[in-house]
């Protein structure tokens, strides 16, 4: 039930909505320039309306700090105000008078946890067919769809990820039925009436791509290409050639017909949109890296990279992150060689490691998944610090998403996305005590009112329960 691979195809009604090759100009009025140059594109037609919620200037003192970039401070101070981190340091760090001060004895502070791979909102709970909005499984390449147009902001899962997992930012991706599944969206984990009210301001878009079993099975079963891994590559390459031609036309200065799918692919070739590539097997990742070179784009991250450990050197050399589970394995053929030491071997090889969830339950325990991956590495004799493991959940995903200058670590000037844990977050016995997003206290374990309750759960059994 919960091992959901996000490629189930119950999306027939959605096909009616898919609308590629439209030549219409964007209707958004936000780019209000006179229309003498119609080709001038509005790159942000569904702009973020998220604004930080009001917060109090706050300091936590006498606390163990993992800064997200591999640093640890014992008996430290974190001070944030005006939605930004102001200072982080040892016990002598000055704390202004007249602000809220929490004693962190026995507690730990980390940056807000970031899940680079989530389907909250586009495969929300309740997991009914009417909510299957993650795979536009009607064509193997659908770069024209945008995950944000599927996200249901009332998914109860957002609140669990916040309260139990300390998740403050997440990337919501299309599923993996398609080779090119569409644009991802990065969200602040803050309930809003609209998805625009959740969008992470200034976060680059991603393009979800998928290797391997899923696309070839989904389309092979329909008697269409691709039905093989070589078919996967062929369709990808043909599509990238079209994207290169489109980009050339677009850049020529002459009139051209807009194509929203091609706009996304051209955005990848421009370096504006990051490739988030579902890919299990090592050999397929290596093929994708060559394909990226062939067409002049960069892969940000291989997701579900269960065999990344086999090519840690290659991934390091190509500066590609691997987003992995601690220990998922055996649910399908391309997950057969998954091992619990994957993350640790990558770390030891100097490659970029991210622990991700792809799951509405494990997103609540990413800290625990990192702890398991860390322990497995230490058992091999690798020297990996607790602070390194926290980096797998904070700075590394931020960097892979292109938001590392804004969040992902506790550095002055960054967003005050902060989790106070009631113990070491790498222990099974620890839970978030308080979670701040942009300096606003949005979860407090000891205050039932500081626990979000989505519209869906109002008036239902268990409304406002601890969950």
């Amino acid at each position, binding site marked *: 039930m919960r091992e959901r691979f996000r490629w189930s195809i119950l999306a027939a009604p959605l096909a009616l909505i898919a609308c590629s090759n439209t030549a219409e100009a964007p209707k958004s009025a936000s780019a209000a320039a006179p229309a003498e140059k119609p080709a001038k594109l509005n790159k942000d037609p569904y702009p973020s309306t998220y604004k930080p919620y009001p917060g109090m200037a706050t300091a936590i003192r006498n606390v163990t700090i993992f800064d997200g970039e591999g640093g640890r401070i014992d008996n430290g101070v974190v001070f944030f105000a005006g939605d930004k981190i102001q200072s982080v340091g040892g016990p002598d760090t000055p704390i202004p008078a007249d602000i809220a001060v929490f004693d962190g004895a026995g507690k730990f502070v980390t940056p807000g946890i970031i899940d680079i791979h989530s389907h909250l909102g586009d495969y929300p709970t309740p997991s*009914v067919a009417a909510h299957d909005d993650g795979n536009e499984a009607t064509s193997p390449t659908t770069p024209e769809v945008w995950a944000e147009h599927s996200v249901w902001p009332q998914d109860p899962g957002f609140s669990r990820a916040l309260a139990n997992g300390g998740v403050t930012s997440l990337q919501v991706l299309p599923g993996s039925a398609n080779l090119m599944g569409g644009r991802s969206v990065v969200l602040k984990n803050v309930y809003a009436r609209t998805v625009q009210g959740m969008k992470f301001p200034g976060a680059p878009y991603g393009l979800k791509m998928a290797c391997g079993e899923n696309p070839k099975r989904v389309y092979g079963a329909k008697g269409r290409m691709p039905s093989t891994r070589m078919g996967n590559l062929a369709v990808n390459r043909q599509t990238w050639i079209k994207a290169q031609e489109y980009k050339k036309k677009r850049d020529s200065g002459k009139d051209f017909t807009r194509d929203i799918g091609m706009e996304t692919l051209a955005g990848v070739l421009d370096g504006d949109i990051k490739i988030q590539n579902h890919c299990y097997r090592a050999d397929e990742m290596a093929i994708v890296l060559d394909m990226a070179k062939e067409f002049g784009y960069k892969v940000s991250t291989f997701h579900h990279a269960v065999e990344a450990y086999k090519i840690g050197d290659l991934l390091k050399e190509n500066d590609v992150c691997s987003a992995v589970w601690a220990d998922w394995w055996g649910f*399908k053929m391309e*997950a057969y060689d998954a091992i619990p030491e994957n993350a640790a071997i990558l770390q030891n090889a100097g490659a970029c490691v991210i622990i991700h969830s792809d799951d509405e*339950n494990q997103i609540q325990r990413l800290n625990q998944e990192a702890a398991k991956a860390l322990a497995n590495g230490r058992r091999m004799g690798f020297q990996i610090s607790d602070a390194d493991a926290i980096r797998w959940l904070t700075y590394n995903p931020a960097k892979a998403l292109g938001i590392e200058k804004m969040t992902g670590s506790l550095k002055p000037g960054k967003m005050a996305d902060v989790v106070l844990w009631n113990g070491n977050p790498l222990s099974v*016995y620890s839970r978030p005590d308080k979670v701040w997003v942009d300096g606003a206290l949005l979860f407090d374990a000891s205050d039932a009112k500081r626990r979000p309750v989505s519209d869906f759960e109002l008036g239902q059994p268990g409304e406002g329960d*601890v969950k």
Partner: protein
Amino acid sequence: MKHLLFVAVAAIAIASPVSAETIAITGGKLVIGDGSAPVEGGTVVVRDGTVVAAGKNVAVPAGARTIDATGKWVTPGVFAGFSRLGLSEVDAVDGTNDKGGGKSGFSAAIDVAPAIDPFRSPIAVNRSAGVTRAVVAPDGGGSIFAGQGAIADLGADTEPVTKARAFQFAQFGEAGAAAAGGSRSGNYLHFRAMLREAQDHAAGGDAFDDDLLKKEDARVLQGVLRGEQRLLIHVEGANDMLRLLDLKREFPAIKMIFVGASEGWRVASQLAQAGVPVIASALNDLPATFEMLGATQSNIGRMKDAGVKVAIGMINDRDSHQLRYTTQYAGNLVSLQRVPRASGLTWDEAFAAISSAPAEILGFGDRLGSLKAGKAGDVVVWDGDPLELTSSPTHVLIDGIEQPLGNRQDRLRDRYRTPQEGNLPKAYEH
């Protein structure tokens, strides 16, 4: 690959000792598994496959092999309260997946025991994580009665089945409704009608018709009706649990056990009063379906507080491969004790929920699930707190036999410890 895998596993099996020896595990922090507090510096003695003594002042018999557990923890093996272990190698590869029998034409008569394959890699992987016994159930199929499950051990030998046909597995609620034609009305009607057919078959003569049951199915259900075979029922919603309690009054001999039970806390007093034990999912806290609207991680703690007999199980939650999550789930329930308004378990209760409680609920409390004298010698030595994420077994005994802890994942780990290839391709590193 298949050939290599077989050879590797076979080699492990041959290498393991064939007969049980006398083993004393000394000096560790000893957990009996019955809910009592751990004992520092305890000793466990296992002889001829069975625990002969465990406690603080237990003498080491002459000639016993001693395992020094100083600085370590010693516990009964983890008893996975619900699984499909041994029924699948790769879930999405049909030929390796024996979880479902729904298309066989049979229902209650299906018996998973012969399909439990001790050479499946999930057996070795979960054994090395300290899981020694498991409830193994068939997947739900085309009938509300999905067939007979077994109690299995995870030993590296050729006989994985502790008890075949230990229980019948049935589905209620959404899954049951789907199997019964699309509604809960059909679900309850099927339940009564199938049991009635089984009664008719028992009565002999012309009364039996095979509308719903084959003769084999009818024979098996007679055992359920008489209470000789326990009935594990997957049910999630509060109302479905209440209606099942109604059915229990109608068929008082049936020994019902609820599985999943995400909304159990809402009817906890009724469950306690009816004496229906629960093998519950530990961490469900999302309204995955409309029968799980009330799901909360506090479910088990609240049921326990109300007097319900509860164990942890992992129905439909990676239940063929990841029974190694069982300790993590139990640890999470301990963590809830420090969350305001939440209900968790004490450490001692949590460990009992993954050792003695499932054994007792399944009717094996006299033989399995704790380190009391006379129980099977399923013992695990851990390098730390067994519920903590960083801990791992250093020794695993099943039926008194020390088990190999290697598995296929370790082989891959060792081959790729350094990813680069050397003077020969990786294929030559073995």
